[in-house]
């Protein structure tokens, strides 16, 4: 398996002097093709910082971050943006979508920003929406979509255009368990289909969907565990 994402002793320090904060310290992590990695930890443990470094939204203070073997520190801001258009997709806890744009337009946005013409971009968007079981809702605006539907649109945008690395920051945080379950199924399907993903979550039931679970505390990776073979066993009413 090839490493899609690799963190090598990545460190991120914010501020200086008496306001200095070690958000992430010496974090090393490899995410291979087909892998879904869950990142767990208490608030302020560095989960979001790790995700920001992984997607090139921020530069590490120390160490390195590689995506498909390319060191992100060697890339300019424009190249990092291109990386996100081609290889990295983000899903946040909420407010993922640009208000005023339809579901299809939100999904097609990375392609259009990359210069893909409207028609092929919309076609790709429709295909992505179909992959997340939202066909028929292409022309709905975010206000007319439920929370779960909005998250699925966000996932569709994160995977449109054959992007390989999916970074999800608490994607189920604002959803009920059943809807969250459906979101996790989509993430799992993406990884099983040749992609890779990093999932930040507080919920162990959803973390169990990952191949590996990484535990963060005070900015450091303190433990690692394997995910469950059958995470569906954690559904309500089932016995773990």
């Amino acid at each position, binding site marked *: 398996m090839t490493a899609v994402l690799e963190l090598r002793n990545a460190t991120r320090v914010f501020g200086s002097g008496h306001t200095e904060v070690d958000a992430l310290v010496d974090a090393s992590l490899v995410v291979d093709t087909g892998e879904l990695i869950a990142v767990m930890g208490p608030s302020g443990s560095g989960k979001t910082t790790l995700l920001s470094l992984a997607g090139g939204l921020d530069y590490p203070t120390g160490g390195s971050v590689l995506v498909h073997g390319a060191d992100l520190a060697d890339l300019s801001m424009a190249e990092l943006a291109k990386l996100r258009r081609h290889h990295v997709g983000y899903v946040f806890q909420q407010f993922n979508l640009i208000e005023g*744009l339809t579901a299809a337009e939100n999904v097609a*946005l*990375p392609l259009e*920003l*990359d210069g893909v013409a409207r028609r092929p971009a919309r076609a790709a968007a429709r295909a992505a929406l179909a992959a997340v079981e939202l066909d028929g809702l292409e022309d709905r605006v975010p206000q007319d979509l439920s929370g779960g539907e909005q998250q699925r649109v966000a996932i569709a945008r994160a995977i449109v255009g054959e992007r390989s690395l999916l970074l999800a920051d608490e994607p189920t945080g604002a959803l009920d368990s059943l809807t969250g379950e459906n979101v996790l199924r989509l993430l799992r399907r993406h990884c099983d289909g040749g992609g890779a993903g990093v999932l930040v979550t507080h919920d162990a039931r959803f973390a169990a969907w990952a191949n590996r679970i990484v535990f963060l505390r005070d900015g450091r990776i303190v433990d690692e565990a394997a995910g469950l073979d059958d995470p569906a066993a954690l559904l309500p009413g089932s016995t773990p």
Partner: protein
Amino acid sequence: MSLAARRATTRIAWRQAKLAKWRSLLIVAMIGLPITALVAAGIIAVTITPSPEERALGERGNADFTIHTWDKSSLTADDVVALLPPGSEAVVRRSWYVDTVVGGTLRSALIADAAIDDPLLGPMYRLVSGRAAEALDEIAVSPRVLEQFSVSIGDRISLGPEARTFRIVGEVIAPERLRESLGLVAPGALDDLDGLDDFRGEMGWAVTEIFVNVPGVTGWHAIAMLPQDDRIGGFGGETDESGLELAITGIALGVAALVLIETGLVAAAAFVVGAHRRLRTVGLIGAAGGEPRHVRHVLLTTGAVLGLVGSLTGIAAGIGIAWLVSPHLDRLAGRITGGTEYPLVLLIGALLLGTIAATLAALAPARAASRIATVDALDGRTPAPRPPGRLARRGLVAVALGSVATVWGTATGHDPVLTSGLVAVLIGFLVTIPLLVAGVGRMATRLPLSLRIAARDTARHGRRTSGAVAAAVVALAVPVMVATITLSNDARHYAEPMLADDQLLVDVPDPTSIEDSEPFLEELESEVFPEATLATFAVAFFGEGPDPGPGGYGDEWYPASVTGPLRQGDDGSAGATGAMLHVGDADLLGALHAEAYADDLVAGRAVVFDAEVIDGEIVHLEERPSEAGTWPDRMDLPAVNADAGLFRPGYLPGVVISPERAAELGLHRASWEEILLRAAGPITHDQLERARAVAARYPGAHVTALADTIHGDNALRNGALALAAASALAIVGVAVALVSAESRRDHAILTAVGAGPGTRRKVVGGSALLLAGLAGVVAVPTGFIPVTLIQSATNEGYPIIVPWFAVAVVIVGVPVVAGLIAAAVSRRPPAARLLRPIA
């Protein structure tokens, strides 16, 4: 940027502008309102202003030029016509300016002998009803004459003191001069007005003009075709007003640009708020792979789109207003406008101006938003603003350099330097605003709770606050400037009055016969000024033959004048001051506060009241020129300087000689005299009103006192102050609304922790008071200093008056009113807003 990306970002801009409809509406209004005013005013101005062709038609019909002055002692009009190039068309027209008393009121009219169907003169007139005059006792008159003389077609009208009578046969107008009291008689009907050429007498004043059209040439080129003849002078032809039109256009565009800058500053504040409210969108664009230029494009496109909408709205509204006013344009212009014009250049220019203004207003917020890191934008964090100290220091340097440039540009007459200096001073003051805003936040700890919250809010939202404060500064600086200029001018007038405070100029109904006005003068003295001194004075003339009467002079009569020594002006040029020579006696000197010089007057010296006219102990009397066009000889007269600075000659004589001295010099005293009354003390307002009441009982009588010579600009000052205060209140209102929208959560927290409705009102009112107060504090030096510099550089020795009332209104009045209004109209948000996070 690829076309697809451009489309995507434009789509985001347009959709988000529609979502934030109130903020978008505000920006559209900020752009649309000045565009409306510009377009409406522009359409009306273009419509009512005659084109050069229309002006020419109105002034001289189809003629290339007119001849209105020639040596009438040796040439008749027909002689002049005979001298014209072969093939020329010529029409002689006599115009009679006549005054007629109608029902106790003096009515003036212009009577011309012209045929309406004449090829040259015809376009100057238009028959409205009835017919043109054919017989010598017929006349067609304008509607104004019909109204003023209370006559109609078919009646007889009597004109002039000798009641020359005509029968009205038609109604006629001059399309380019609708307000004129006009009468058209048949050609030749005025030929018997002998002795009236170019002179004014009891019968009025007649002018003979020859309208000429030279074949094959037009305009002034036709005049060049005339044979050189010294007996012919005085031509009327096309005038080049392109310079004036360009100046008017420049001023109009300058005013429009200034207003758009004002509204642009407020619109910029709205764009900053919009960018902040859409921070999440900025982050999502970055997370989706967008680059800073994509973010910039979204915001700039928002500006351009709203600017375009605002401009189109403004243009439509402006056209609508012009259309509504169009039925009244003829009356407004005093000419037949021939339909409303909608100049394409104006409309396209307005569209570009508004769109560019809005786009520029979005530029700084766009650049700032594009610099925010995606991570920070996703978290709703904006970077800390740059410390304002460095910018403020640069601003103070700009003020200093700008002041130097202003003084230098004024002193040397270099307008570009002066303009640059003024702009630098203005911008310098404006860029100190962020420092003041930050200072407000720092001093908040000393304030009561509500004001403290308001001060912190103001400082925290400094980016959008500063723009609005800058706009309010520009608005409030204007009345400070206007007040400084007008008060200083008034002080200058009082420092050099045209009359002393105890003097009254008296105009009698018949200045050629003072005796006939005795009842008026006796009533004036007995009722109002029992201890006054009355004196008469008149202009001295070189002349022979009969007196031409008031206002008349010519080759036979020549007013005597004296000139002072050559003096060098500030610009290096040399010039001499002149004054008319007047004839008066010791009574006149008494009325002029110069009793001490009575002996000098009797001794034959000229008593001088303008120090620039006297050259040591002599004045130079210009004698009558021996030939036309030659410089006159000069005679030195002994003189004495009586200039005590009590009045500036103009209404009153500058140089006085006695009647005996005038006779020695061969001068005549004009038959029309003026009367000067000197009261026992300063003339009170009550005395002046009573004097006016006496004059009203004698038609043609009039009195003029010092107060009548000083045209106070109170209306202008107060008008500018009211307009500026209203503008500043509106700007501050918008700024407070924007800040309040951003502080919703804070206010919801206040409510949730138990603050009463009064607290929020005080916070909102405090914000308005602080914003307006900041603007006022900066506006005062911004308005006062440049004017002071310019006036000091041009008017040495004249007082600079501090406009205390305007300063008080700007610094105290407007802020207090702003605070009260804001507090009164603010509403308490429901606490449930606390539960809804800001997107």
